[in-house]
C-alpha cells in the first residue's frame, strides 16, 4: 500500500515539474507494475485538466490521456495476471 501512495505522490510532483516524456511513460509503467492502479486515472485527469486545451466536443477530446489510461488499464488487467508483473 505504501509504495502505491509514494509512487502516486512522486508522479504528482513529476506532473507539476517535469517534461511530459518523463511523467507520461512513468504513469504507464506504474499502471503495469501495480495491480489495478486506478490512481493513474486520477493522474491522467490532472494532466488533462492542467495542460490540456479546452475543447468541448465530447469527453474523449477533453481528456485524451485519461481515456488512453482508462482503456489501457482494462487491457492490461488480464495480461498482467498472466505475466505476473510487479506486486
Amino acid at each position, binding site marked *: 500500500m505504501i509504495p502505491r501512495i509514494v509512487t502516486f505522490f512522486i508522479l504528482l510532483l513529476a506532473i*507539476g*515539474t*517535469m*517534461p*511530459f*516524456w518523463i511523467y*507520461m511513460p512513468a504513469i504507464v509503467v506504474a499502471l503495469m507494475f501495480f495491480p489495478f492502479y*486506478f490512481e493513474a*486515472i*486520477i493522474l491522467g*485527469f*490532472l*494532466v*488533462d*485538466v*492542467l*495542460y*490540456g*486545451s*479546452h475543447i468541448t466536443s465530447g*469527453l474523449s477530446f*477533453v*481528456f485524451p*490521456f*485519461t*481515456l488512453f489510461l*482508462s482503456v489501457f488499464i482494462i487491457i492490461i488487467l488480464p495480461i498482467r495476471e498472466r505475466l505476473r508483473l510487479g506486486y
Partner: protein
Amino acid sequence: MIFVFGALFFSFSRGLMVNIFSPLWKGENAVAVGFRNLATFFKSKNSLIEENQILRDKLASSELANISLQTISDAENSLLTNFGRVSPNKFITAAVLVHPPQTPYDSLIIDAGAVDGVSLDAEVSLPEGPKIGTVTEVFSHSSRAKLYSSNGEETNAVLERSEVPVTLVGRGGGNFEIALPRDVAVEIGDKILSANLASTVIGIVGDVEMKPTDSFKKVIVRSVANVYTLRFVVLVP
C-alpha cells in the same frame, strides 16, 4: 465509473487545479533563475569579459536593427491610421509559468488572468512581435493559451515568397505542416506570415517533402518561437 465521475469533477475544477499548482510553478521558475545566477558566479573573469564583449556587439547590432524596424513600423502605423485602421496599443505582459515540454499539448499557462484584464481569445505574441497562439481559458490570476502549433490546430497564413494563402496545421513541438500544390515555389528558409493586415512572421520553412508521383508537396514549418524556452509573452486583450 471512475472516468465518468472524474470527468464531472475535474471539468468543474480546472481553475482550482491551476491555482493549486501555480505556487509550485512560480517557485520552480524562481529556483531556475537562482541556478542560472549560481552558474554565473562560478564563471571565470576572462570568460565573463569575453561574453560581455560579445553581448555588447550583439546589443549594438540589435539596436541598429531596432531603429530601422521602428521606422518601418511607424510608416506602417501612419498608413493604417490614414486608412482608419488603428493598431491596438494596449498590451499585457505576462510570464510563462508552464511551457512545452512540461505541457504535452503545446499549451502555455501564463501568470495573467481576468484580474489583469486578459480576455478569452486574446492573441498571444512574443515580446518581439510574432503571434504564437490564443488564450483559450481565463482564470482569476492565470490563463491558458493554445499555441498555433498545437496538434491539429489550423491557422490561416501567407507564404511570403509567392504570396499564396496557406493553412498551417499544427503538428506539436512548435512545428506546422502545409500541403501545397507541387507547382508552387517554396524553399527552405521561406517565411510564413500571419494573414492579417499588420502581418508578422509565424514560421520558417524547415523542410519540403515531395515524391515524383505526388501532386502535393508536404512543407514542414517551424515556429519562430522556441516554445521550449518561452519566458515572457505579450497579450492583446
